[in-house]
């Protein structure tokens, strides 16, 4: 038996090996080079110790980008989780009748980035539809993308694009909870809130862990729309870490970029670790 398990494990490793090699060569090795560059000068010729880390923490642009990114994540992730959970519960209640609504929520994911950008421009440009509507009802328009409203537009765009995806994941998590538990709870006289609080949420935690991590990673992709609409230097409210890294790359500030990337990796790693410890422990993140 042990021998069989060893053989299966050996074969499994063989199948994993190409992928592992690929990740090792194209992801891990370059990342190690990034870590190395975070301790050297811009073109990697001189060792500078922690100087690059000191520079980035003193850099006002980095501070702004970090605060905007953290603010964005702190606003978007909880909002997205809450909305997707509520809508998933609703869709689960509707059953087959909710199928059409599910498609509608998934539709934004299929829209290419360029089309989304075009939509933004049509809606939020100085001469866009939103301003036209506001003018019609007697309000003054504003330059949405060059004012503090830009942050709201960014949040809206992120949630609109990713809501469907999270709803589907939530539905998968909800459907994995055995209906027997619900029946037993109802028989025992539990109310809706009690059922939700004591049965649905705890059983959903492993899925929530996965969804949160995925949503966190997806939050960085919103840079694409922001960059295409507002360019390298958008309004301060939507100046994210990716903007900074993109600009640093253009300016050959590889030292600062590497240091910033390492810091960002550590922060994300820490967040994922905390999530794993708190939510991921329950059923090891696989819904069981």
């Amino acid at each position, binding site marked *: 038996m042990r021998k069989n398990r060893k*053989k299966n494990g050996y*074969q499994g490793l*063989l*199948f994993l*090996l*190409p*992928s592992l*090699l*690929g990740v090792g060569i194209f992801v891990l090795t370059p990342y190690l080079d990034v870590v190395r560059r975070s301790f050297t*000068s*811009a*073109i*990697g010729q001189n060792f500078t110790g922690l100087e690059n880390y000191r520079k980035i923490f003193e*850099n*006002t*642009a980095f501070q*702004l980008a970090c605060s905007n990114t953290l603010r964005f994540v702190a606003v978007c992730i909880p909002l997205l989780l809450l909305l997707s959970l509520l809508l998933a519960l609703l869709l689960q209640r509707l059953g087959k009748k909710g199928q059409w609504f599910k498609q509608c929520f998934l539709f934004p994911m299929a829209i290419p980035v360029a089309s989304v950008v075009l939509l933004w421009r049509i809606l939020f440009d*100085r001469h866009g539809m939103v301003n036209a509507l506001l003018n019609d009802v007697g309000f003054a328009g504003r*330059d949405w993308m*060059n004012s503090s409203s830009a942050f709201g537009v960014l949040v809206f765009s992120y949630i609109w694009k990713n809501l469907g995806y999270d709803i589907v994941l939530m539905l998968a998590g909800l459907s994995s909870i055995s209906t027997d538990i619900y029946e037993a709870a109802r028989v025992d006289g539990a109310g809706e809130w009690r059922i939700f609080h004591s049965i649905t949420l705890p059983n959903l935690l492993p899925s929530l862990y996965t969804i949160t991590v995925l949503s966190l990673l997806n939050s960085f992709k919103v840079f694409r729309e922001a960059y295409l609409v507002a360019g*390298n*230097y958008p*309004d*301060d409210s939507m*100046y994210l870490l990716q903007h*900074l890294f993109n*600009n*640093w*790359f*253009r*300016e*050959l*500030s*590889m030292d600062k970029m590497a240091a910033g990337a390492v810091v960002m990796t550590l922060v994300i790693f820490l967040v994922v670790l905390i999530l794993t410890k708190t939510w991921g422990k329950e059923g090891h993140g696989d819904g069981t």
Partner: protein
Amino acid sequence: MRTYKKKSIGILLAGILAALSVTGCGSPKGGTSPDSAARSGEKVSNTSQAMGRYLEEELPLPEGLDEVQDLILLDDGSYEIAGCNNSTMQYLRYKMTDGASWTDVGVPEAINSGELNANGESLTLCLAPAGDILVTASSYDEEQGSLTETFTYFDPQGQKQLLDIQVPQDKNPGNNVYKARFTQSGQLFVQDYGRVNYEIDKATGAILKTYDADGADILLSAPAGNRWVIVTADQVLCYDISTGEELPKDSVLSQQIMERKESLGDSSGSSEGILFAGDQKDGLFYCDRRGIYYHAAGGSVCEQMVDGQLVSLSNPTTMLQKLLKSEDDSFLVEAVDENMVCRLLKYTYSADTPAVPATELKVYSLEDHTFLRQAINQFQHVNPDIYVNLEIGVTGKDAVTREDALRTLNTDILAGNGPDVLILDGMPLNSYIEKNMLLDISDILQKIRETDGVFENVANTFQKDEKVYAIPAKFAVPIIVGDADTAASGSTLKAFADRAEAMRAKDGEKNVYERIDEKILLQELFAADSAGWLQEDGSISEVELQNYLTQAKRIYGTNSHEGEDASNSYTYDTFQEYTSDSISNYILDTVLGGSQCAFGLLSSMQSYATVTSATDSKPDAGFTMGLFGGEVNSHSFVPSEIVGISSTTGEEKAARSFIQTMLSSDTATSGSYTFSTNKKAYENAKVQPWGDDEGNVGGYSVSSQDGTQLEFMIRWPSQEHMDQLTKMLESLNRPCINDGIILDIVLEQGGAYLKGEQSLEDTSKTILQKMNLYLAE
């Protein structure tokens, strides 16, 4: 057995997956020059040195021959050249048999006796391989507005005969013969103004055959051996000149020629764009700036014989005229340089010379520059053992933006494949200096200073801590042209805005300056004003920025913008356009009465000639010129062609030598006479390059707004004008902001403000926010 089978399948599948995952590895090395990719055989590694290539040698022109009219290969294999001595107005003919010197063989007596040009006609000689000559005598009747041509044919024995050559007039009244040529077999062809070619009977002048490409638009045509080649807008047609029949279409040749759109675009009165020559085996040779190529009849490839990059052919100021191929497989190219002086370039194969020079020097520029290509050509000429590989970041032929190009460049630098020399226009120069990306080249500057002299304030623009990291080879200066009060008001933007409003109030009908859209206006004013924006801490001064925007709006408001269509508005697409001359375009509108003054960048002597001619043409109006923008007693300039050496270079010695060549007076003088940081080159550029003894160098004949024809003659600036210019250039001391990012931010927001779409506070706030974010990074 079954387990063994499963294991084998498992291992096999794993192996396939592993193989598939590594097959996508490796990408072609990015960043090779499109021109270098045209070289046959691509790059050969230095470890296995291929030998043999064509070397260039310039043959001397015959003494006394000022204007070359024709050059041919005679039947006996020697070269024959004919033309005119402009001083004595004698027509001359020479022959070269030894490959080195010319022998005067004379022309038929009737040519120089005055018999053919008794009424002052100009004569053009056309030579045939057997020794016959066709002389075209042309005279232009100004009253009638018509050109009269007579054709005299001299056979090899010198017997003269008048030919009555008449080209069809039905489709094009007033059509005439544009030029005449003999083929290698002695047939006479003439080309009319529509570029249709006719084979002419040498006995009677009658048209024997017509080559009109079935009515297609002909770009150029030429004889090539026993073929007549016609290039239209979309294909290459070849005709057998013995029968007049069209030969089967050659798709390979067509494709190769059609790809040379830039060369086809060169076809004009003074250049052929692409030259053709034939060989005895029905093959075809063609020549353009990329080099000389051979295509065998029916072949599937076009082989590069001579790499244009390594010889003078790639010099953008060289205008190609004719290609001859000798029996010994050498080539002779007749070309004309920017001074309209003929050059004879001979290419001979040397089997002992490496096919590719052992040393490669990589030069990178975001945009293509004529001056840069000249410098490369000059450098290669003197250093044949070094191959200069020019890479252009933004070619305009694809969707690559300036930022994409910079990222690609930075990736190459980090990978250790970066260039040796950087042309830093439009690049984050200050960032490169901070990161020690550029070497100190103050020693090169010192050498130039000692030998030729420099405009110190321009040369030291990028000096930091006693070191010079980049040197602008050229510069431009914002000027204003108008009456004395207007020229004086150019000292500050506010003063000019006040003056512009006063001019508009006085003459409400006429625009103050030529109609340009808001972004172009902002660019011109940016060049004049931005020098004073940067504060000591590196941030942008809000006061200066608001002043700039306020005055720009006032100036914008003094012109009528009725009927302006935003979709048709023109903006500078490239950074090079932003730093190039603009005043010579705007001043014409002022001379024609369309506007009251003109302002823009002055960057060349030719442009200065236009400006001084304009001011001299309005003595009553008291037109004069002054520096524009900046502050009182402090004057702006726009540095361009900024060169530096990458600190990661592996060819430092060659790089330094290249920069020295680029900044030298010889290189800096040639070309379009742009203002050079090299003082000696600047002084050389003061010499009148062409025109007559009275100083006339050109002119314009245009219709004014009321339909009257206006002639505007351009005269070379007088010594007084030159002294005024020198004094002006020596007073320059403030470089404008040379950063494309800042310029883009200003234009994006400033344009909206000028059009009234947002307030001054919002505009300056947004600009400052973006700029300070950029500077904070």
